[in-house]
């Protein structure tokens, strides 16, 4: 089925007895830049970095992408992983803390609790994105992704998430919920988040600077995507302790970009 059989979700990839291809079809569709969810119009700071000269060729781009992956990518992967776990397992780990009022047994309180949990995870994302421009871009992409995913892979979790955060959940959270709906494991959700944290910027640089797309794909191929995803999964934090790696230059680029006259990308 979808990996949520008795005994809980497959949190670290394919669980015993699961076919090796489990979730891969969903992962390919989700991570494909052709997924019609608005991602093509976001450069993740690359447009502004190209404009200011911070990125002028493949070497700069490689450094930009490595740093982006180690910071925003790591945070996105961790949030997507957590969101996918939460969508798989509506018990929502952080809701069982002493102070939470989630003492009612399964029943009517369930949907309300799920909505509260989504808002809590979304607030954790908010606290990790200092720049309002980046929060806006993240929410916009999250809203569009949930809208698309709801039609492609209808699921309870996506419906609850859309209701809980109507302006749009942060993109990694939307991605985690969409991944669960698409049949992916949390590990695959984290991988998709890490991947999309760099591909949009890479494509934007190809378009804006006319870089050789093969060179840029080589740069992408050399990024430590799997290592990063593995380390995020190994940590398996409480939501409050999830990675929070900041990138001050991305914050500056995002705010400058919003104030730049000529913009081809949303962010």
């Amino acid at each position: 089925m979808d990996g949520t059989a008795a005994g809980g979700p497959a949190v670290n990839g394919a669980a015993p007895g699961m076919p090796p291809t489990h979730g891969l079809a969903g992962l390919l569709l989700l991570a494909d830049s052709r997924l019609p969810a608005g991602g093509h119009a976001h450069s993740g700071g690359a447009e502004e970095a190209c404009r200011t000269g911070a990125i002028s060729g493949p070497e700069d781009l490689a450094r930009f992408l490595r740093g982006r992956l180690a910071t925003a990518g790591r945070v996105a992967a961790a949030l997507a992983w957590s969101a996918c776990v939460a969508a798989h397992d509506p018990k929502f780990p952080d809701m069982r803390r002493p102070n939470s009022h989630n003492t009612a047994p399964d029943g009517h309180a369930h949907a309300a609790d799920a909505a509260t949990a989504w808002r809590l995870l979304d607030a954790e994302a908010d606290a990790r994105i200092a720049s309002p421009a980046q929060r806006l871009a993240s929410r916009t992409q999250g809203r569009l992704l949930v809208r698309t995913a709801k039609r492609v892979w209808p699921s309870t979790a996506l419906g609850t998430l859309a209701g809980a955060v109507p302006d749009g959940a942060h993109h990694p959270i939307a991605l985690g919920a969409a991944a669960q709906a698409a049949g992916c494991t949390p590990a695959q959700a984290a991988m998709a988040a890490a991947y999309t944290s760099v591909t949009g910027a890479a494509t934007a640089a190809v378009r804006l600077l006319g870089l050789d797309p093969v060179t840029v794909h080589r740069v992408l191929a050399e990024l430590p995507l799997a290592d990063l995803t593995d380390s995020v999964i190994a940590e398996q934090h409480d939501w409050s302790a999830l990675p929070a790696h900041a990138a001050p230059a991305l914050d500056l680029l995002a705010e400058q970009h919003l104030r730049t006259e000529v913009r081809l990308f949303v962010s």
Partner: protein
Amino acid sequence: MTKALVRARAILRTGLDDRGLTRIETMRSDPPLTLRQTAPGEIHLVSTGAGPLGGDHLRLDIEVAEGTSLTVRSIASTLVLPGTGRSLMEIHVDVASGATLVFAPEPTVLAAGCDHRMTTTIALAPDASLFWREEIVFGRHGERPGRCHSRFDATVGGRPLLRQEFVVGDPESDGSPAVFGTARCVGSTLITTETPADEPKSDPREAEVAEGVAVLPLAGPGTLVSALAADAVELRARLSWGESRVSIQADSPARATVGLRPPASRFP
């Protein structure tokens, strides 16, 4: 290299005296973390001895009681040196209802070969006020820095306000135009407003950006000034500009309902 590893825990607590003024309730120094009261409600951290050195574990606890205000500064910058293993500096802060904390020490300088970990955990009551500045300098003049991993967590009434980690000395992010660019220092100042966190997303505060510095209204009730610079002097100038923008916004008529404490004149 047989120096004994240092374990130190300093504690600072305020209380109200019978006239309703702030007094220092507890001031426990633990070398090398030495505390000196320099004015009413104002404490200076005086480093006695070098470091921290690799292997040292230092901890500072600050509790600002309801209705009191406290300012913490330092005499000199902190030079983090290599030693046996990783050094740790942890700071735990609690700011109660109606209380104000200004924390503005001199920068932390990461010497070559250091391996340093910093954690700061701040719990704010919903109507507490905070001014918290942190500056990290990547090595002394012309020096390549060692490694540093800092984590900063601030919550307001238990809700997350700001969580940030910085990693210096990691080949993945060093020199990345996405992270620190060509800067040699990073700094940030968190300034919280008194607004309750009921509708933080509708807050119309505008971000501002200038060369190497941005004033970033957070989703919760606070603003972060974030800066990158070539040296410590430029970093301080950029942060100060951003900090002044926050107080200007707070003083403008449109912002009168939000308000900020402490007032600009009390900012360091």
